[in-house]
């Protein structure tokens, strides 16, 4: 067995040292009812590296990779080019095979990286402090709702209808058990986000208003107006961002008055990976809220010789110290994905981030106009970043997408996939365009839609 260094003579010598006759003597505390007489049945025996690779390759080859097709999917997971050096860095064993930095003297690499990551995220979000990451955007969203409850001592969260439905479902699932009430809604399929409708639902019991920016239909809501309305009722504004590249082109949520900004960081450095592992980003605008934040925080300090160094800090919020009184039960974060994000952000820098965002938007504008020329297709959005909603004139977008998949085209996310069986949304198609999209891809989609709708 190539991963197990002990030899049989080692094992014999060690059993001798221990004073045991056989390995079974070491499992003597296992009750008889649970003892097995050999390897577990119904599973294969060990296999060579070559055989395993071959097996897994057949599974991989049964999927259509985004890079092998004209590709337009988004809805919370975006395909961007990840520079080769990102993967080279995260595969360094000292990063890949380190644990949580519990011993800071020999974990300065991870800790300094996290400090830089927190700074990058805080700046991108227009906030004072970001944490060292959470599992993903959807769980970060729930953690923000829970935190708003702690800060305001209220328990009614108002969700925008245009919040990603998976995020809304996570929040509602958790709230069933924590006693909070969640006011949610369906998205209004119209050109502009329904801010007025959202503001109407804020009352004196509201802990927070949760709004996605850009929203699930790709529209860009006026966060400043929502912040003002939320603050007037003593509630916090939580802004949720699922496409961080957008913030290279549009104002940051913090700048517009959001109190807690959370999001999915996957688009930068991490890749699609069929949905995980992803990267939960979490930041607060007001530094006074830091002690109510969930998750790990890395802070600067000095060592015994006065040299600058970094440690995990404010851990009195966390489960390993506070146990049942912790701000969250979270232990693991998404460290390696945070590293990938941070390396990619370092490669981009201010200049690269702004240019990347501008290029995404230019291509998206071009695609929106081109696709809107297809008979039977209308563009819903007036404003968007790199993703917009098309309406297919009453035709089922799911049928169209599934039909085009048969021809090797990944045409976008039908709203029916996110909101099954909602008649009013069934002809909606979400189309995302990034720097990886070519003019030829857009032309191919236009042609394919024309064929499918005629």
């Amino acid at each position, binding site marked *: 067995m190539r991963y197990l260094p002990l030899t049989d003579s080692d*094992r014999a010598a060690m059993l001798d040292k221990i004073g*045991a006759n056989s390995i079974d003597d*070491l499992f003597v505390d*296992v*009750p008889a009812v649970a003892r097995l007489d050999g390897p*577990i049945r119904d*599973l294969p025996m060990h*296999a060579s590296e070559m*055989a*395993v690779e071959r097996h*897994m*390759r057949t599974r*991989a080859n*049964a*999927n*259509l990779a*985004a890079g092998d097709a004209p590709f337009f*999917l988004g809805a919370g997971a975006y395909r961007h080019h990840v520079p080769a050096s990102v993967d080279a860095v995260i595969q*360094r*064993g000292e990063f*890949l*095979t380190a644990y*949580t930095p519990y011993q800071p*003297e020999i*974990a*300065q690499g*991870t800790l300094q990286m996290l400090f*830089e990551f*927190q*700074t990058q995220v*805080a700046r*991108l979000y227009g906030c004072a*402090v970001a944490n060292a990451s959470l599992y993903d955007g959807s769980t970060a969203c729930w953690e923000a709702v829970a935190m708003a409850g702690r800060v305001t001592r209220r328990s009614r969260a108002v969700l925008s209808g245009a919040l990603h439905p998976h995020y809304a479902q*996570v929040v509602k*699932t958790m709230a069933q058990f924590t006693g909070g009430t969640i006011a949610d809604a369906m998205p209004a399929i119209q050109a502009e986000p329904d801010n007025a409708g959202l503001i109407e639902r804020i009352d004196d019991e509201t802990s927070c208003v949760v709004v996605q920016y850009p929203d699930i239909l790709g529209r860009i809501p006026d966060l400043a107006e929502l912040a003002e309305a939320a603050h007037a009722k003593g509630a916090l504004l939580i802004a949720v961002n699922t496409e961080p590249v957008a*913030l290279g082109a*549009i104002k940051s949520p913090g700048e517009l008055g959001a109190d807690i900004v959370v999001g999915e960081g996957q688009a930068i450095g991490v*890749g699609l*990976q*069929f949905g*995980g*592992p992803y990267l939960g980003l979490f930041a607060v605008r007001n530094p006074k809220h830091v002690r109510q934040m969930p998750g790990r925080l890395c802070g*600067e*300090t*000095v*060592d015994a010789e006065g*040299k600058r160094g970094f440690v995990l800090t404010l851990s009195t919020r966390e*489960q390993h110290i*506070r146990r*049942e009184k912790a701000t969250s*039960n979270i232990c*693991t974060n*998404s*460290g390696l994905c945070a590293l990938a994000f941070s390396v990619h952000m*370092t*490669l981009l820098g*201010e*200049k690269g981030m702004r240019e990347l965002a501008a290029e995404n938007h230019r291509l998206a504008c071009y695609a929106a106009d081109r696709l809107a020329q297809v008979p039977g297709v209308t563009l819903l959005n*007036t404003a968007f970043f790199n993703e917009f909603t098309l309406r297919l004139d009453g035709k089922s977008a799911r049928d169209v997408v599934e039909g085009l998949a048969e021809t090797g085209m990944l045409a976008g996310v039908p709203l029916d996939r*996110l909101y099954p069986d909602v008649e009013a949304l069934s002809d909606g198609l979400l189309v995302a365009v990034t720097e990886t999209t070519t003019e030829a891809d857009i032309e191919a989609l236009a042609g394919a839609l024309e064929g499918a709708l005629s």
Partner: protein
Amino acid sequence: MSAPNKSGWKPEMQPASDGLHTGPATVTGNRALMLEEPLLFEIGHAETTGVDLPEIDAAAAAAATSRFGGFARTEPIGLVGLTEPDTVRHYTRLSRQNYGIDLGLFPLGSCTMKHNPRLNEKVARFPGFADVHPLAPSQTVQGALQVIYELGDWLKTLTGMPGIAMSPKAGAHGELCGILAIRAAHEARGDARQTVLVPESAHGTNPATAAFAGYGVEDIPATPEGRVDLAALKARLGPDVAAVMITNPNTCGLFENEFREIADAVHAIGGYVYCDGANFNAIVGRVRPGDLGVDAMHINLHKTFSTPHGGGGPGSGPVVFSEALQDFAPLPVVRKLHDGGYELVEEEQREHRGLSFGRMTAFHGQMGMFTRALTYMLSHGADGLKQVAEDAVLNANYVLRSLEDLLHAPFAESGPCMHEALFGDKDFGNDLSTLDLAKALIDEGYHPMTVYFPLVVHGAMLVEPTETESKASLDQFIAAFRSVAERALAGDETMKQAPYYAPRRRLDETQAARKPKLAWQSPEQ
């Protein structure tokens, strides 16, 4: 005794000086391969980038009127960039200030730092896994769905449990999943309960999870042997108890030999048994928790099944369920169809008889961890996984029996340990602490064991060598551990300033917490 290092180094080669400053100061602060690295924000520039974007298509450029609805960014973000060579150098230098399992034994008890096979990394990067969108049409992701299904099948078979939830993102998320299913099951029969019982030796996540799910949390006492006190537990059980959460093998490194009796007693009062599967690596392939009466258990794929920890994640925490709980599991689930294909079911009314408690995360779980874990399982097979458990337990017992004459081993007489050996700081001289011993171990080239956990042992030191260490590696570690233990017992005051040779000396955690500096600010600000 022979030198504990076969590199050519011999004990008489100790430096003649105090061992700290054997040469002149350097102007850079560097010491040969020990390189100081500034913060990114001190070396990067706003106008520097390491990414060249492709030339934009002419037609697209022509359409360049921005449609941001009045929200175009007008202020700088405040980022800095580096070119590729400087980026690679920055992070390579940082990496060298980290300890990882690739560098040496990493005996962090209960965290399970075993070797991460590189085939797993290669497989996870196949474009058919890495470059696939979670919402792609089902007919284009059949292989990905099959991997989720097959991994679920392996986990169910290895645990002897019929139900599974694959979506939880990490161990603590899996715990929450299990406890929420328990709560949903009680509520479904109109039997609201208030209390979850947790042993004192439990991971901090257990009480935090139970409290998060709305339960009151009470401690279960332990016997002097380091196991759950069955009589005390039985005395506490009643109609208000929803569940007990028990780690098995427990965090004292012992198998709960009365687990079946515990489970029977809990079931008798209508409660459920949650097993924290963090230590499943000690019994994988040898014991099926389903045979012990477990109702729900999370499995840390990043522990037992070798997916990388990456400086604190990502994790992955699938949960297996008994028949009584399986319908309450969260969605989505992958279902095998009669035609041999696979389907992702995301809608409640179509699965679990409509009883599912909901959704725990966007999309379907940690696919990148699933591919790695399944690769690991296929490599080992049923026979290899059994050997994994046996070697992990053998290594831990070897460490226990090689140190117990020197260090206080509170449960050494409680039977063999499983995958980890537990020691206490009894009889350390001159007020030396477990922390001092840990820092001295850093100077010997090791990552310390888990310290001050579990809470039931004073100055606890929890050592988990794992099965991927050779006997030679263990022998060197034992020699180093004995040396620092002897110094601690003798009251060697120099240990209070250890580590001496790490990239940093002891860091001031009090200052970090009192005046938190959590983001870089330019000195001008």
